């Protein structure tokens, strides 16, 4: 199987440069928070001495003039997804890896494009030039990834027939192993894939078990892991821009109600069940705000969906003034309705259960709803006959 690895390095930084071209040729650091700790997610070429994963304090001491940007993950994801949609027009088989990396199945596509070179050009052209995509072509995902790493931006590298010889100069740090395993390999003086492939499989397996076998095979360019294409998901989007930025929940909820009603009226949604809704907004002086609402049970009912969003929204802290709001519906299920019970009492029970679940999620604990249960109905003492117990529908 022929696989192309599409690699866009520093995707976060390149996305920010697309959005803010004035930042180009300047030292810029993108930061992300891990609780109270802030680290560097990405940095521009001009931010000398700064590396990814470094704490922000350390980074600023290395590059005092750097502009700090807060990571906007939804924006990077959206940028990468739009690129994959564009690549998807060339090949339907795309497996998404981590941000900036994807594997594309290209079997049989050369014929359509009039040769491999034209196909590669077409794939590279699917990505905007300023993102300088790299392509690596091989028979497996790992060698294709290594080929993509070894190539220059905007170019492609095809792994030669002798894959092991091609891979031998690369560091074992590129293997999909844990940090501890990589340190152990280095401690054994195994620094390159060539060092690893020169060993016998038995020796590697004796030290590293099944992971050692996988690493040894990868070092020889043997990667039989299948390409798992991302299922194409229908997504419905409705957007609205506020006349002036809003901060109140009431105003945002009013906009959400309009959008949700509009989305449910779309012919592709009508009569179908919805599994989830995502709300996204550009917030003034803040990264993009995004919140996903997943329904316990898929629903075709606009009122019910809005009620769930409204209930959850009451506990959400709004980060800043919303400029706009985009609602996307995902997980459209094909069935046009939910099969309900023939017996009304069972239906009522299901409704009660649903109501209890909603109340529980709203209150944060079991709702104080009780039911009367007979414990000693035969007792002569009236207070012994029945008790109140928590209601479990």
């Amino acid at each position, binding site marked *: 199987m022929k696989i192309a690895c599409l690699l866009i390095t520093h995707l976060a930084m390149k996305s920010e440069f697309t959005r803010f071209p004035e930042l180009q040729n300047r030292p810029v650091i993108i930061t992300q928070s891990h609780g109270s700790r802030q680290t560097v997610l990405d940095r521009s070429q001009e931010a000398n001495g700064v590396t990814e994963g470094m704490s922000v304090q350390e980074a600023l001491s290395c590059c005092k003039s750097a502009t700090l940007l807060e990571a906007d993950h939804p924006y990077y994801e959206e940028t990468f997804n739009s690129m994959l949609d564009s690549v998807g027009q060339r090949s339907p088989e795309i497996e998404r890896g981590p941000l900036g990396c994807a594997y594309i199945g290209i079997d049989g596509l050369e014929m359509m494009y009039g040769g491999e070179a034209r196909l590669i050009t077409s794939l590279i052209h699917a990505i905007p030039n300023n993102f300088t995509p790299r392509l690596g072509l091989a028979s497996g995902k790992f060698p294709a990834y290594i080929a993509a790493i070894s190539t220059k931006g905007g170019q492609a590298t095809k792994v030669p027939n002798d894959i092991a010889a091609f891979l031998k100069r690369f560091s074992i740090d590129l293997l999909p192993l844990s940090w501890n395993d990589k340190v152990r390999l280095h401690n054994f003086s195994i620094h390159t894939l060539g060092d690893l492939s020169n060993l016998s499989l038995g020796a590697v397996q004796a030290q590293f078990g099944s992971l050692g076998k996988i690493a040894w095979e990868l070092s020889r360019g043997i990667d039989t892991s299948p390409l798992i294409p991302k299922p194409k998901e229908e997504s419905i989007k409705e957007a609205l821009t506020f006349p002036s930025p809003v901060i109140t929940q009431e105003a945002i909820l009013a906009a959400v109600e309009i959008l949700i009603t509009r989305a449910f009226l779309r012919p592709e949604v009508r009569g179908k069940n919805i599994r989830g809704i995502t709300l996204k907004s550009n917030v003034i002086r803040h990264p993009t705000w995004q919140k996903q609402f997943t329904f316990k049970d898929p629903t075709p009912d606009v009122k019910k969906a809005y009620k769930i969003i409204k209930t959850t929204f009451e506990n959400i802290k709004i980060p800043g003034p919303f400029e706009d709001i985009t609602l996307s519906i995902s997980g459209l299920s094909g069935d046009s309705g939910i099969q309900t019970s023939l017996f009304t009492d069972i239906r009522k029970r299901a409704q009660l259960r649903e109501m209890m679940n909603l109340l529980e999620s709203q209150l944060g604990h079991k709702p104080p709803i009780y039911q009367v249960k007979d414990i000693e109905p035969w007792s002569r003492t*009236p207070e012994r006959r029945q008790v109140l117990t*928590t209601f479990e529908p």
Partner: protein
Amino acid sequence: MVQNSRKTSSFNYLRAINTPIPIVVKESPKKLPKSLVINGYIKHIALISDIWEINDEWWRSKPISRLYYQAITQEGRQITIFNDLIDHQWYQQNI
């Protein structure tokens, strides 16, 4: 104002219902209920329609020994009250 009990609220327990409510009863010379106070109002008993005695849970530290009266007030309301034969207090209880 109700003070915070500082107890964690929990709903995982059984709660007794129909527990007796203490009431004030004025007795006749024959020790029968004559009038009673319900929600701050005095109700006069017009008729006692039934009387029965319960002796139960004699094996427990607090045995039950009650003399029940089914009575009808002058307003026509039917109530059930009992005289606890151990602590000699009057209670109202639904049957």
